[in-house]
């Protein structure tokens, strides 16, 4: 019965051996390894080949835990092995404790623990990898879009110039296609850049006082023509109680409204587009203004409403309507920067209504006269102005040269390297400097700092206008700090360039 119990409930078994200093086994109780007297301990298992050094020591006790051995039936046993030496002539003793059952449990626990640690490390690495990939994507988009701007400036400006060269009707029609394609491309680049800014968390509003009614009328003017061209009617209702001047970001507000109106016209074939703006409420120096754009277009299925605000999403898979699907994603984010959101009410086949309440600052110090009216400022037509262009892109140089030459009252001097700017200014007087920001081996804002430090007082006053695609809020702050007066955003067209130059050549 005891033998049965022993088999059914095995506990650790120990084998005792006495060995000579060279490892020869002189005595053994043969509990695990049988008939081994006379053999060298090294022959039992490679483990024992490594303990010869320990056998030579005097009066020591070494315990080797969790040693995997193979028994004479070729079964793995997991053991603790005690090697005991003595300080007299007594031979060393080796005890093998078979603890297989105990260590099997430990093996299971260790397996779970290690796998969990390794998996979490791999997950962390995957996250790092995804973040790096995201950063690379954003940098790639920013750089790639930036590189597209110079050639696009060339297309836009030369298209303008070409228009004035006495083209026939057929040629003018071709030019219209170039114009519309390049404008679309320009918008696409702007949208891609905005999305990359949003994803990088760098899109911020630039709050400034502006005339909201003027902005709405301006938008209305542009879209009335667009709607009419498609045979649609644009109805606008701008409530009379709207504040005159509000604090907000007029460029971004225009972008949101433009996106919503563009979509309304794009997805409506017959009927009307209604654009309503009303004052929601005024509270604590804030005005909440309600914007609503209704169309009688194709509408959106209830299940698809959430999707339309996702980047690169176009519900119309048949590509009937062109577009990258970025506009609404950008609009949604811009509105969210004002702590608001865009709501959609739509019925498939009947039309959609997009509405939002946007908060604007109200300040009694906002005065209409403080808002720049750039269009009214013109240079004296009889005066010749000398302009220095600091620009390494040949396309941009040529574009600016052609635009200014067509006006007849500008002298243009060009330098392509940052280090040539100060010496050129020392030699000649300029009324205005157009400064590219990203130059080979130098930056326009750094060069402007040098100009502002020049001893001649006149150089400190010469207007410097940056030509750049980098117009993040912190970039603009840096330019201002360096002494740059204003920025012309690349890609620009003839109007954008001339109006900015004329603003400073009083």
């Amino acid at each position, binding site marked *: 019965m005891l033998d049965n119990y022993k088999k059914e409930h095995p506990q650790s078994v120990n084998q005792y051996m006495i060995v000579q200093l060279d490892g020869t086994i002189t005595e053994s109780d043969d509990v695990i390894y049988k008939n081994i007297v006379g053999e060298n301990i090294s022959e039992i298992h490679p483990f024992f080949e490594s303990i010869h050094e320990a056998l030579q020591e005097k009066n020591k006790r070494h315990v080797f835990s969790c040693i995997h051995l193979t028994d004479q039936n070729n079964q793995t046993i997991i053991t603790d092995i005690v090697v005991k030496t003595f300080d007299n002539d007594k031979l060393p003793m080796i005890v093998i404790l078979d603890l297989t059952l105990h260590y099997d449990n430990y093996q299971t626990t*260790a397996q779970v623990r290690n796998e969990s640690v390794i998996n979490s490390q791999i997950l962390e690495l995957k996250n790092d990898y995804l973040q790096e990939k995201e950063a690379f994507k954003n940098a790639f988009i920013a750089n790639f879009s930036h590189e597209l701007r110079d050639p696009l400036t060339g297309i836009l400006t030369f298209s303008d110039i070409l228009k004035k060269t006495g083209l026939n009707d057929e040629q003018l029609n071709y030019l219209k296609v170039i114009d519309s394609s390049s404008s679309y491309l320009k918008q696409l680049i702007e949208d891609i850049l905005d999305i990359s800014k949003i994803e990088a968390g760098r899109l911020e509003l630039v709050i400034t006082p502006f005339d909201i009614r003027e902005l709405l009328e301006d938008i209305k003017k542009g879209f009335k023509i667009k709607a009419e061209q498609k045979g649609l009617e644009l109805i606008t209702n701008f409530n009379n109680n709207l504040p005159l001047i509000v604090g907000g970001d007029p460029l971004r507000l225009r972008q949101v409204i433009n996106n919503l109106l563009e979509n309304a016209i794009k997805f409506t074939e017959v009927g009307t587009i209604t654009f309503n703006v009303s004052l929601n409420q005024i509270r604590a120096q804030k005005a909440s203004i309600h914007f609503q754009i209704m169309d009688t277009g194709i509408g959106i299925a209830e299940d698809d409403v959430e999707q339309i605000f996702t980047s690169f999403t176009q519900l119309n898979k048949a590509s009937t309507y062109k577009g990258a699907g970025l506009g609404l994603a950008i609009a949604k984010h811009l509105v969210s920067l004002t702590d608001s959101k865009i709501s959609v009410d739509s019925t498939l086949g009947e039309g959609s209504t997009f509405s939002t309440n946007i908060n604007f600052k109200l300040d009694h110090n906002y005065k209409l006269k403080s808002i720049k009216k750039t269009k009214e400022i013109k240079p004296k037509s009889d005066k010749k102005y000398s302009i220095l262009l600091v620009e390494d892109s040949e396309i941009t140089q040529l574009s600016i040269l052609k635009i200014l030459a067509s006006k007849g009252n500008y002298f243009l001097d060009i330098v392509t390297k940052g280090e040539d700017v100060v010496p050129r200014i020392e030699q000649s007087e300029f009324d205005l400097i157009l400064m590219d920001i990203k130059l080979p081996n130098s930056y326009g804002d750094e060069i402007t700092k040098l100009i502002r430090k020049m001893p001649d007082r006149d150089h400190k006053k010469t207007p410097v206008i940056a030509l750049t695609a980098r117009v993040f809020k912190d970039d603009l702050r840096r330019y201002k700090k360096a002494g740059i007066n204003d920025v012309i955003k690349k890609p620009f067209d003839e109007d954008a360039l001339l109006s900015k130059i004329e603003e400073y050549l009083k």
Partner: protein
Amino acid sequence: MKISKKIVLIGHFGVGKSSLIRRFVEDTFTEDYKVTIGVHVLKKEVKLPETDKDITLVIWDLEGNDDITNTRPSYLIGTNGFLYVFDLTRPATYEKLSNDLDYISERFPKTPIKVIGNKKDLVTNEFIKQNKEVFGRFVDFYTSAKSGKNVEDVFTNLAKALIK
């Protein structure tokens, strides 16, 4: 003359110590990870024709540990050479490489150590180049237990160092 030398593989868990030994001793590889607890001891004879000597490597495959100071001292008694193995794909396994090597050198000043970056099949040469300062300057061999790349060389190289 029969020469037997004890070499110990040391490093974090999951870096491929057992796989390297299995590739060297049995020339096999498995993707399944089975954690090593305690010690597995295997041996293999290495022929060194240029020295006219054969050497038996008694290879101690120690359980992985993310803290080298927790290694049981008894495992290291009589060690003739170390192979420090880390996983090229997991920074946690080489973040303390320099400290770990100092720890071994201080306790076993005359014992050769070879440093192995394993799982080479999972990283690019560019990655290795970029990490020259992180681990590259310490590494003696980049290995892949999976493909067998450099595995034989690691053990042969250490064997040669042991009989010098």
